[in-house]
């Protein structure tokens, strides 16, 4: 294995991880490693266990067998940031983009402290970084799908997270905004952070990821995008659902 260019940054390692969800084995013997400074796409059909995997990494679901190891990641200190699926967020709660980004400072603030000048400056800087300074006072419900995802990335940055997990991040996000989001994530990756983005379809953006994990309750393939998308892997991924995708981009043919 090549030595990481970020010697003090995070590293993630899963060994034979099996996780039960709703009485069923949702993941079996999942093993893979992610080094610092990696943008990884986690691809698989609905029900493939992508969210279960993220929940297990985040410590929200118990691991039945195997081990998830996060090297140099202080979970309680906010080093792990989780961007949940749209459905898990309470959109009725009236908060602005700036309020949400400030939530990233919770771990650093503790119980009773109010945000100080440094916290506010960091929030402003992170909003600028994701290109949403002009939308800082907009309610989250007033933002588009892509803008909302970028607000969550800004929150992870104010949280000073070294590992970002984005679940179904492309859901409700149009193609142009998906590209914009990946560009932001690439800059985050360039700082030595680990970014995992789960989606049921990487569409045309697969080439923008460093690694792709193909998941269908077990690891079908893991590696650089140009190596993993073989016809065998595509069949393992989507064959069970009766849909066979061709590698040359014709995709979506029903058998």
């Amino acid at each position, binding site marked *: 294995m090549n030595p990481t260019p970020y010697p003090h940054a995070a590293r993630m390692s899963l060994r034979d991880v099996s996780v039960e969800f709703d009485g069923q084995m949702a993941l079996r013997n999942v093993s893979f490693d992610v080094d610092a400074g990696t943008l990884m796409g986690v691809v698989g059909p609905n029900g493939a266990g992508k969210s279960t995997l993220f929940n297990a990494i*985040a*410590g*929200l679901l118990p691991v039945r067998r195997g081990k998830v190891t996060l090297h140099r990641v202080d*979970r*309680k200190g*906010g080093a*792990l*940031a*989780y*961007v*949940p699926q749209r459905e*898990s*967020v*309470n*959109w*009725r*709660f*009236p*908060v*602005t983009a700036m*309020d*949400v980004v*400030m*939530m990233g*400072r*919770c*771990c650093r*603030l503790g*119980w*009773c402290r109010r*945000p100080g000048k440094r916290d506010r400056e960091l929030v402003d800087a992170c909003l600028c970084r994701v290109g949403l300074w002009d939308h800082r006072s907009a*309610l*989250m*419900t007033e933002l588009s799908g892509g803008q909302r995802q970028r607000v*969550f990335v800004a*929150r992870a940055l104010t*949280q000073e997270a070294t590992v970002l997990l984005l679940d179904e991040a492309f859901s409700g996000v149009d193609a142009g905004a998906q590209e914009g989001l990946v560009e932001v994530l690439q800059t985050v990756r360039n700082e030595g952070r680990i970014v995992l983005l789960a989606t049921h379809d990487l569409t045309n953006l697969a080439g923008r990821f460093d690694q792709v994990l193909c998941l269908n309750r077990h690891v079908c393939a893991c590696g650089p995008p140009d190596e993993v998308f073989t016809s065998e892997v595509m069949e393992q991924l989507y064959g069970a659902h009766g849909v066979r995708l061709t590698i040359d981009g014709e995709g979506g043919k029903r058998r």
Partner: protein
Amino acid sequence: MIEFFVAPLEYGFMVRALIGSVLVGVMCPLVGAYVVTRNLAFMGDALAHAVLPGMVLGFIVGINPAIAAVPTGVAVAVLVRIVSRRAGFSTDTSIGILFAAMFALGLAMLSLSTTIRVDMEDLLLGQLLAISPTDIYVSLGITIMVILGLFALHHWLLFASFDPVGSQVVGARANIVDYVLLVMLALVIVIGIQAAGVILVMAMLVTPAATAYLLVRRFVSMMMAAAAIGTAAAVTGLYISYHFNLPPGPAMTLVASGIFALAISFKRRVPA
């Protein structure tokens, strides 16, 4: 006009009732802002009913019923979450079970007790005009505790309310915050029951906050607006009850509902 407001205050019971109504008008809507935005209305209603055995026990052993209601409310609030987690039910189911069981227990205790003479109507509709100095001290104590809690946990409460999963990943505090919010809800309900009774406390908890949700954009502004609307409704309701010989609980409820009706006629919030 000044006479309308000042004359009733010649009576001690009206001064206490005015203080009580302001405390209810501020505190119930402050916590009510979370109730409205986090879909906790059923929980609020259930807690209001579930404190009945505590209040009855207070009457039996001679403790102020408001003081006796506090541990009951807190215990039920915590039990709801424990039952939901252990049984894998939705929170609504656990609330339904505990709410009915506790209310039935309160009614059974009331029927079996030969020592207490409590008017059921007072418990159900409140007795603001008969509020005692001890009740006021209890309400003040609760007010201070809840305001400190809301202030200290403000950012965690926002985080856990908006993104429960994301906040849980960041630390165990998100869970504690949810428990603390339920405890604060139980506490303000105890204040509210004194004024509006078991049934109408919901009006002070939900209606002003729902009105504020229509009128302002951000959550903090919503809390402030809810407290202002709640206070206006509670105080106006109290004066109406004095001058028109109505029970105060229903009068406050009608004023709060009237303000809501006005707000929704002119303003509509874009659905999330």
